[in-house]
Every structure is written in C-alpha cells, then in structure tokens.
C-alpha cells in the first residue's frame, strides 16, 4: 500500500488546507484511491471553487426556465409540451495537445450532457479562438479542431449549424474550443440525475474503461508549463459511432419508464457521475469495480474511478426493468453491466476483489468542497506604442473583409454537415443566428454564440454585457424571441488578482445584461488556467443564446432583393475605439462602445415587433457589430451577390467614424416598403435612417467609391484559401 505523503498530496493538486479538511471529513488519512477521488471532485473543473461564489449571483430563473444550472444542461419551455435542453462546454487544453481528438471529444461530451436529459440533440455550435495566423502551430490546430468537430457531429448525425472562429495572439498557446449542443425533449419526458430508491441497480453502459485521461480533470485545471507538450499527456480518443449507439439506445430506453436517474461520465468519469447522482438524491452507493467493463488488463480501482474514457453512461434503473434494459443495449451492440447499487448509508463504498478498498461520505465531500473568495485587483493595461497607419474607406473595407477574422468561413462550415435531420432553416452564415425548425411543427429555435474578447480585455464588465446584448440582438435579427443563455467563461489563472478581477467583472456584466434583458442563465461552464508561461488569454466569456420563433415563416436571414431599401435602426455615434477599423490602423487602446440597455431593449423590441407584424415587408435583417455599418452592408452584398447604392446621410461629419464605428444596439432592416417602416418608427420614437438601396452588381458608396461585388467576394474568400493551401 502506498503511503500518502506531502508529495503525493501536492501531485494531486490538493493544498495543505484542503488535505486537513479531507482528514477531518474522513476522520483518518485517506488512501490513494480516496485521495484521487477527492482530488478530482475538488478540482477547479468539477468544484468551481474559484467561481462558485460569483456564479451564484447570476439570474437563473424565469417564466420559461424548467431547469437552471446544476443539472447536466439547462432546459427552457417552448410551449406545446416541448422543451429545449442546451449547454456549452470547453475542451481547450485537450484540443491544444491533440486538436483532432480534443475537439471531437469535446463535441461528444456536450452532446452526452444533452441527451442524458432525454433530449435528442438537434444542433451543435462551436466557438473557436486560435492564436495569430503567423504562429507556427495555428494552421495545424485550426485544421485539426475543425475536422475533429465536423467528423464527430457528422457521424452522429447532428447538424453543426454555426458558431464563431477568431484569431488573436493571446491564444497562441491556449486555444479555445467551446462546443454547444441544443436538444429537443418532450416536457414530460425529461430525465434528471437524482439517484433514488435503495437497492436499485446501477448500470454502466458504453465504451469499456481504459486508462484514458487519468488525471484529465486535474490536468484541465493546472496551468501549462514548458514540459507539458513533450511529457506524454493523456488524450482520449473519441468514438462517434459509439456515441450514436448510446444516443439511440438511450432514446429507446427512455420511451419506457425504466430510468430513475442518468448521468454521462464526463470529466472525472465514474467518480463524478456516481458522486453527483448520489449526492443529489441524498443516498449512498456501493460500487463493485470487478464488474466494470475494462479495455485493458490489470486496471486498478484508482484507474477505474478516475478514467476519462469517452462515450460511457451511468444510470440507476428500476429493478423490474433490468432485463428489458439490457436487451435494448444488446440490440444496439453495447456493453452494459450492473456495477453497483443504491444504499441508504450516505457513503460511497468501493469494492474490488471482494474487499472494501475505499469509503467516503458523499454529502460532506460534496458540500464541503472548497469555495474561495480569491483576491482581485483591476489590472493596469499597458499599450505598446506602435506606428499608426491610415487607410481610405475602400482600402480599409478590403483589408477588413480579407482579414482572418472577417474572411468567409466557408472552409470551416463546409466541413460541417449542416443539413442532416432536415430541419436546418438557416445555418449561421445565412442569418445572424442559426434557425432550426422544431421537428414536425411550424416553430423554430434560433441559436447563436458570441464574445468580443478585445472589448472584454479592456473592460470585462462592459465587454461581457455587450456579449450578452449581441447574442440577444442576433436572435432578434433572426426573428426570434430571446429566451435564455448558456455561458462558457474562459479565463487565465484565478490565483492572480488581475485575472480574478476579470472573472468577477465579467460575471457582473453577464448578470447586469441578463437581468435587464430578462434573459436568464440556465447552464454554463468555466475554464480557468488558460495561460502558458505566465501569459494569459484575453478574458473570453462566450455567450450562447437561444430564442424561439413561433412561426418559421417569420424568421429572417441575410436576404435582400433588387429594389429593397435598407434602414439603420438605432443611434450611430461613430465610436472607433477598439473597433476593427482602429485595429487595422494599429490603434489598440481605448474603451468598448458604451451600452445603454434601455436603448437595447427599445430598439430590439421595435425590430422584433416590426418583423412579426409586417413580416411580408421585411426581406431580411442583420445586426451591426464588429466593423460597423459598412461591414454589415458588405456582408449583405457578399451573401446575396447583389449590389448596393449606399448614401451617407448629409449630416454625417466624419464618414469614416460613421461607417466603421461600432456603436451598440443597432440593426439593418431590409424592407420592400419604406413608408410603413418610417411611419412606425416615428410613432414609436425610434431612430431610423435610410442608408442603401439594393441595386445592380456594384457595392457603391455614393461620392466615395465603388467596387464590384464579385471583387468583394474574391477578397472575402482569399485569406482562408491561401492560409490552408500553403
């Protein structure tokens, strides 16, 4: 038996204080197995010890919320006995080490979180951040991650309908791969992870357990050091075929009322799934590890409890349904085993070779998991002095649309099956949010992922507020009523005061915006320690928003027809600080544009109601965000392969500021009747400006310049082609 010493304790990422607490809980020294279990349960990844205190402040309830944070995923009500289950999760560290498998298993993990609750996944999204395109690793990471996401979702047969992909040097050694999944479930067929019923069997199903990712959960919470690239890390290989079998067999099993509780084995595998189920149901568990299906010889209890082999599920079922359950798994060719039983002791008792090898009290372990109020301090942001450049309007536009961040992402989304399941109405290149029909109905769901880390770096609170508002706006532009969000908080090391400041401020920002917009947080994920050699990523709180469209025929995309008029809804002040325009000019300082949430609501409700009431007048809608008015217009021209005659209003003093400014709360509405919109806007006291007419095949700013749309398209496609092919 290995003697637990200081070294082993610290190897497990457990502090001295935490170790003391462990001894108090157990009233003795833990053995290695028990220590391992504590270490994963109390890791940042599983316990949220640095953020719990702040996450609790988020608004999580609302009229439409069926299940908020705390379960595998959040659930909202969309009427007609139907509900939407969704969550976002990060797989940042694994994807940096092995981009293909890391990203693939990230998609697999989030889909399991969703279908565990009884839902059928109907759409996947992803939010990706890579380092500078000049960084030697970027190309390979990009290719691997995109292929990994595509291959996994494509094989399972869930459409990958959208997301975002950006490049910035702060992610050079810490890329971000955040995957989001949306599922559809009948309201009376939702499954939870609350274990119940003494004597009920615990069933294991799915892939056999190997030595994959042991310490994966602790790895994800420890800062990278110089060696981690060569020291053989534990990467998991994903098996999307196995996932498909699990999905279909669970769906079949859920038709019956066999399942009492169900939970996927994600981070910290068997340990966290069994602990969470038992802790939620306030019961105890006996596990018989000899029964666990293993892929390899001589696996120890420590390895079995900590393995992160993918594509496994744990469930508590009714004893009377054991036979039929096993029959269903057999039909799908899956390995299933009864590995334990629910008890009333409140303890987790682990048996191996007929002896008790570990015994832990479940509630105390879960309840006394550490919660820190780490010190924070506003960072001082230094700006390098750089040579500013200047551009004409035309050359700035070309520069922006052919830059990595604003180039066409065709190369990416062509690798994603967007049309499987036949319910994708708009994938995210066709509309501000992806629109997915609720199968067999006229309803639809709109989904989007958003974050602007440049804004968040300068002002994390305002940046996060803008992220929430932008996702709200994207949903409205697609014709949806925004309902709720999931979030994925990606930050550096919380033990540093400046990072803790960013985290707290970003959460405050999310809280402020969500409260104002009546847009609760129903699920989420936190990824910390995204830093290498002391250099942290920009704060990146990604927001995944979900909205509902009552009638799919009223959803809007980036569409326009010859002769249509385009109007700007909202005030344009010409805020250029931190804008795309300033960034290409090498001006990287300043503050994000101010956000007035009252105005956000007012403009948003105007657009929302106008689309609903005057559906046939509105050809399309687009929000104005990065790159300002001009980029929003150029995107419309490129998307539709149609020309625009753009007239800058006569009272505009500085047309560069006006065209490229990134003021918030604005939309472009494309309409085929100008009188009605003018009348309604006037009545509702909404700022409305006519900006363009759809005409011909040139993108023309009157009295400034013109360029053929064909050329714009070429500029828009060129970067990815060159980057990948070379």
């Amino acid at each position, binding site marked *: 038996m290995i003697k637990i010493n200081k070294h082993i304790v610290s190897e497990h990422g457990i502090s001295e204080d935490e170790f003391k607490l462990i001894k108090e809980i157990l009233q003795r020294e833990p053995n290695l197995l028990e220590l391992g279990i504590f270490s994963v349960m109390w890791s940042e990844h599983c316990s949220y010890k640095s953020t719990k205190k702040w996450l609790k402040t988020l608004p999580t309830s609302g009229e439409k919320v069926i299940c908020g944070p705390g379960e595998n995923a959040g659930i909202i009500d969309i009427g007609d006995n139907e509900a939407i289950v969704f969550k976002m999760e990060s797989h940042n560290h694994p994807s940096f080490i092995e981009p293909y498998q890391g990203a693939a298993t990230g998609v697999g993990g989030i889909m399991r979180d969703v279908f565990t609750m009884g839902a059928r996944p109907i759409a996947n999204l992803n939010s990706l951040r890579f380092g500078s395109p000049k960084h030697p690793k970027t190309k390979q990471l990009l290719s691997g991650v995109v292929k990994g996401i595509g291959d996994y979702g*494509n094989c399972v047969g869930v459409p990958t309908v959208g997301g975002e992909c950006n490049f910035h040097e702060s992610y050079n050694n810490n890329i971000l791969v955040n995957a989001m999944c949306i599922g559809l479930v009948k309201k009376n067929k939702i499954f939870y992870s609350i274990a119940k019923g003494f004597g009920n069997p615990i069933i294991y199903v799915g892939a056999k357990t190997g030595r994959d990712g042991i310490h994966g959960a602790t790895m994800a919470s420890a800062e990278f050091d110089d060696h981690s690239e060569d020291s053989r890390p534990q990467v998991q290989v994903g098996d999307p*075929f196995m996932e498909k079998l699990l999905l279909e067999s669970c769906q079949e099993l859920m038709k019956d009322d066999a399942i009492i509780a169900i939970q996927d084995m994600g981070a910290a595998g068997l340990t966290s799934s069994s602990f969470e189920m038992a802790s939620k149901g306030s019961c105890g568990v006996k596990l018989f590890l000899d029964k666990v299906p293993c892929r390899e010889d001589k696996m120890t209890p420590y390895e079995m409890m900590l393995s992160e082999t993918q594509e496994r599920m744990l469930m508590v079922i009714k004893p009377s349904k054991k036979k039929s359950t096993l029959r269903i798994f057999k*039909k799908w060719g899956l390995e299933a085993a009864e590995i334990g039983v629910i008890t009333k002791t409140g303890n987790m008792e682990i048996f191996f070779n007929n002896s008790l090898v570990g015994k832990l009290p479940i509630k105390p372990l879960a309840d006394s998991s550490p919660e820190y109020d780490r010190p924070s301090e506003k960072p001082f942001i230094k700006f390098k002095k750089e040579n500013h450049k200047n551009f004409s309007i035309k050359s700035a536009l070309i520069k922006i649309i052919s830059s990595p961040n604003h180039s066409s992402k065709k190369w990416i989304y*062509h*690798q994603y099956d967007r*049309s*499987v399941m*036949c319910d994708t109405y708009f994938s995210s290149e066709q509309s501000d949010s992806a629109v997915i029909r609720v199968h067999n109905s006229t309803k639809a769901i709109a989904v989007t992922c958003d974050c602007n880390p440049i804004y968040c770096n300068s002002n994390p609170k305002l940046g996060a507020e803008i992220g929430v508002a932008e996702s709200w706006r994207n949903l409205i532009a697609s014709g949806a009523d925004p309902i709720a969000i999931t979030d994925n908080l990606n930050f550096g090391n919380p033990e540093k005061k400046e990072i803790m400041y960013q985290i707290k401020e970003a959460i405050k920002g999310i809280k402020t915006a969500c409260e104002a917009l009546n847009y609760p947080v129903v699920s989420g994920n936190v990824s910390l320690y995204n830093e290498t050699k002391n250099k942290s990523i920009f704060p990146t709180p990604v927001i995944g928003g979900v909205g509902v469209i009552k009638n799919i025929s009223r959803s809007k995309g980036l569409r326009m027809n010859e002769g249509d008029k385009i109007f700007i809804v909202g005030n344009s002040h010409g805020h250029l600080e931190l804008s795309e325009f300033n960034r290409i000019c090498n001006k990287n300082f300043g503050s994000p544009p101010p956000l007035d949430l009252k105005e956000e609501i007012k403009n948003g409700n105007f657009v929302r109601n106008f689309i609903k009431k005057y559906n046939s007048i509105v050809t399309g809608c687009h929000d104005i965000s990065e790159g300002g008015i001009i980029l929003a217009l150029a995107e419309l021209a490129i998307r539709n392969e149609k020309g625009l005659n753009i007239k800058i209003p006569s009272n505009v003093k500085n047309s560069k500021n006006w065209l490229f400014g990134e003021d918030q709360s604005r939309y472009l509405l494309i309409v085929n009747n100008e009188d009605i919109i003018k009348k309604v806007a006037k009545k509702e006291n909404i700022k409305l400006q006519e900006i363009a007419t759809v005409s011909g095949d040139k993108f023309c700013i009157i009295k400034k310049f013109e360029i053929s749309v064909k050329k714009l398209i070429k500029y828009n496609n060129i970067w990815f082609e060159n980057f990948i092919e070379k």
Partner: protein
Amino acid sequence: MPKKVVSIVVFPGSNCDRDLDIAVQKYMDVNTELVWHDDPNIKNQEMIFIPGGFSFGDYLRSGALATKSPAMKEVIRLSKKGVPIIGICNGFQILTECKLLDGALIDNYKRLFICKENFVKIENKNTQFTKNIHKNVVQFPIAHAQGRFYTSEDNLKRLEDNNQIVFKYSSRDGKINKSENPNGSMNNIAGIINKNKNILGLMPHPERAVNFSEDNDGISFFRGLQNLL
C-alpha cells in the same frame, strides 16, 4: 386500397434514415418498413432503400462493414430478382462495396468532409428512377467525406457506353466541368445505375431537398418514383 410498403434498411450508424423515411412516405405516398440490419428477411420487396449516414461508423472504408449484415445479404439476393434498389450517400457506398454497383467511392480529393448545396445534371433520363423528373438539372445537397467515384478506365468506358451514368455534378445550367466537381469524382460522376438498371446509387441527398419549399427538387425525385410500384 391499402398503401404499398417500401423497405428501408437501417444500420446502427445510419443517420439519414428518418429523413428518408419522411420523404418516401410523404412524396411516394407509401408506407415504409424499417428493416434492422441483422434481420435476414425483407418482407416488403416492392422497393428497397439504403439510407445515408455512417453505418458501423464508416470504419475501415465507408460502407465496407455494412456489407456483411444479414439484411444486406438479402438485398443482394433480391437485387438479382430485379427489385428496384436505391442507395443514397452511405447507401451508394454500401452498394459499391457489395459489388452491386461498379467502382468505389474514395476520399474526397481535398480529404475533407464537404457539405454544400450542389447542382446535379441528370445524364440519363431513360431509367425508371429518373424518367419522371421534369428538370434536367436538379439541386441536391451533398454531405460526405468519401464521394470520389473511381473505377478503371475500361469500366468507365463501359459505364458510359451502357448509359449507366445517371447523375453528374454540374453548374446551375448543366455545364460539366472541373470547377463544379466537389470531390474529384471521375468525370464528375455523382450517381450510377447497374447494367440491369434496377439498382441506383447516388452521393447527393434528394431526401434533404424536400423541405421548406414546394419546388425543391427532391420532391419531384420521390414523386417520380411512385410509378415504379
């Protein structure tokens, strides 16, 4: 009169079976029977579909492992009796792996999965599967990683001489050139038929082109199959 019944063979990794089922029922005005891959009997032998997806994960080669399923053995037997059989995407791959159709479908030229809308020219309108489609060029999405049709030069010539090439990737107005070839297929081939003209395989997905608008081309594809029954 009771509706006729069409069979759809389902593998554990099929994922276009539901979409196909819906399209077939709705536009062919028939009932369907989903045949599980390990069922050696196919009761309804009027017509058989092999759907798209990733049968058995598409491990080894797409469609290869599926050829050993009991249901496929039955499909092979029935094919000899002239039963009309259509394989879409993975279904096409399975049919070539079973040698019911010529050639092989290998990695796309750029070695990437590709999903996009595509135009497809109907090269042979004299087949029982295509004679009722009014248009010459249809729009069907594609979604595959192994869709590059390959066969020997001799075989290719035979296919052409026998009019066995049914679909080719084309431009909107039916031009067939390299720039419209999404995956590097020989001669832009998107779908072929066997010599006896009862087995059709195609990579594009007509069952995904039936939604949201009444003039989507998948609808006329499936409507056109009605007369086969």
